[in-house]
């Protein structure tokens, strides 16, 4: 067992750090304060190959491993989790689905433009009445000659406002429950009746917009069906298995970002004649947080390494997501506390990171769902 990252992993970490320092740090607080999508970050992210993780070279990808993605996601999340929402939607939730399940013509047409950042992708599974219970989908797709007609609506769709390529899940046979769900790729600009609603007002992650999506008599070519009819749920679950590693890595980054800021502060902040970090009560708290964060990181890296080695990783990715996101919530909350009144202000980042941490416990399967997944594997 070797817990060392490769030289390439270290270089990727340095590369992303450098990129974050130059392009993201200067705008991180501003995009959040102004609820602004950082469109200026897309081109430099694409240029560095950040949308090409694990994807084939023939389409412009870099054929790296998933651990490389995890490292990049972690480094960016330290400073701006909103940016990781772009990365995650593109690299874990949409492009890999196209590559694996889409018609070859669609792969050739869309995957290169997703990797180049020319087109952004969004994953549209959740509905007002179908969150964790995907089988309660109300959106329908009815075959009509060479097309499907899709009707329905989706909510909480990350980056819908800026996206062109939507992975839409819809019922093709309601009598079959989850086995009646199918997945489609819907190209927004080519689809009449497709509409994106205004952004939701959220607790945090304001640089990434989350919107409702409406589909009214949308005519989608039959070629846009992903896999076979009825494979939608399987596609969604396989995608979320990998997506959960991404969420875990985002949580690890958020927590580390908060720790870095709080540690610097408590070493400088003098009260009663000494830095507050010299108090044992503070030291023990810091030790606990650092230990939990390290465990979360190791679980996340291991889940990624299992995925890379071709092993089944559903259990490990659910565990990593569950643990890392709860650690992120705890660490960020404690870091706000460690920084006292200043931590509660927008003069520092910990307050923003705390709001960002909360959503990681909820999206891509709430932590309650992760516990169900884990229990299934544990109990057999």
């Amino acid at each position, binding site marked *: 067992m070797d817990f060392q990252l490769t030289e390439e992993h270290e*270089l990727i970490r340095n*590369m992303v750090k450098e990129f974050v320092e*130059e392009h993201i740090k200067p705008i991180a607080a501003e995009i959040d304060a102004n609820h602004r999508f950082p469109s200026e970050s897309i081109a430099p992210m694409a240029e*560095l*190959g950040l949308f*090409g993780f694990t994807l084939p070279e023939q389409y412009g990808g*870099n054929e790296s491993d998933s651990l490389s993605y995890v490292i990049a996601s972690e480094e960016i999340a330290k400073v701006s989790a909103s940016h990781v929402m772009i990365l995650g939607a593109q690299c874990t939730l949409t492009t890999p689905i196209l590559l694996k399940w889409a018609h070859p013509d669609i792969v050739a047409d869309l995957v290169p433009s997703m990797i180049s950042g020319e087109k952004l992708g969004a994953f549209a599974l959740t509905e007002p009445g179908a969150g964790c219970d995907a089988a309660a989908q109300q959106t329908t797709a009815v075959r009509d000659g060479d097309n499907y007609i899709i009707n329905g609506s989706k909510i909480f769709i990350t980056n819908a406002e800026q996206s062109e390529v939507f992975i839409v899940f819809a019922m093709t046979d309601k009598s079959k429950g989850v086995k009646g769900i199918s997945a489609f790729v819907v190209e927004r600009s080519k689809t009449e009746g497709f509409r994106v609603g205004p952004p939701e007002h959220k607790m945090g992650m304001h640089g990434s917009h989350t919107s409702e999506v409406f589909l009214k008599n949308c005519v989608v070519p039959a070629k846009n069906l992903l896999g076979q009819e009825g494979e939608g749920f399987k596609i969604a679950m396989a995608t979320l298995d990998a997506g959960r590693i991404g969420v875990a890595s985002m949580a690890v980054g958020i927590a580390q970002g908060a720790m870095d800021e709080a540690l610097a502060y408590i070493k400088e902040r003098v009260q009663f004649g000494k830095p507050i970090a010299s108090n044992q009560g503070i030291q023990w708290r810091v030790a606990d947080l650092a230990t939990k964060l390290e465990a979360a990181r190791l679980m996340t890296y291991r889940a990624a390494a299992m995925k890379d080695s071709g092993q089944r990783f559903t259990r490990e990715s659910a565990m990593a997501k569950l643990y890392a996101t709860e650690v992120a919530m705890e660490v960020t909350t404690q870091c706000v506390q460690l920084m006292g009144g200043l931590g509660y202000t927008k003069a520092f980042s910990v307050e923003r990171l705390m709001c960002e941490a909360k959503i990681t416990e909820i999206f891509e399967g709430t932590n309650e769902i992760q516990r169900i997944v884990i229990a299934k594997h544990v109990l057999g």
Partner: protein
Amino acid sequence: MPNIIVCYKWVMDDQDIKVNPSTLELTTAGAKYKISEYDKNALEIGVQLKEAHGGSLQVLSFGGANLKNSLKDILSRGADAAFWLADAAADNADAVATAKVLAAAVKKMDPADLILCGDGSADLYSQQVAQRLAVLLDLPVIDNVESLRYENGAWIASRQLRDCVETVSVAGPAVISVLPGIAKARIPGMKQILAAGKKPQNALSLADLGMTADDVQSATKTLSVKGASQQRKNVVIKETSAEASVAALMAALKADGVL
């Protein structure tokens, strides 16, 4: 199409070097290494010249036992191949010793039309290697270069001097040391990083260059290395009126001989 060699140094990251506040001794334990920042700018201008004019771009370094760890990093930044010589003799090498080894190594490489160096190294910053290297190779040297172009087989360089900019040209091979502002080093992307390991890494030894450790003697001897310190006087003026405060400040500055 010019062949370019860029020299670089693998140095301790200064952020990892701690100064003991009482003894001013440096603590370097656990310090990570990185490419000297000045050399990244030299490499970048080399890459830009290669992109504009073709030719080849090789990097060369003389360093300690961990120099190997620099190779993928430097190769991800646009060089075609690396030549590297790791030897314990590098640990205490000054500009005299370093230039001697680099000159011998350059003679083993393909003939270069240009040898680029950073303005100085990020650790010792003696700003002498380029000049000494040129003497040993019997080549012209241009230093303090803030912009550089290649026209009809000649290098045209603008030198930033104290109160003017001097533009000079040199035909044929030359050693040129460049200022950091010459070119902002780009961030290598995923493809460059993953391709770096596949590029040629040519290990050299002192024996390959016909040298022994005795040939790599430094001309200078380091007696001690200490952190710089700034003593604060912590004088607090607590007068109640602005006039009295100014008067007290003036008196204190006069007493110190500042005024």
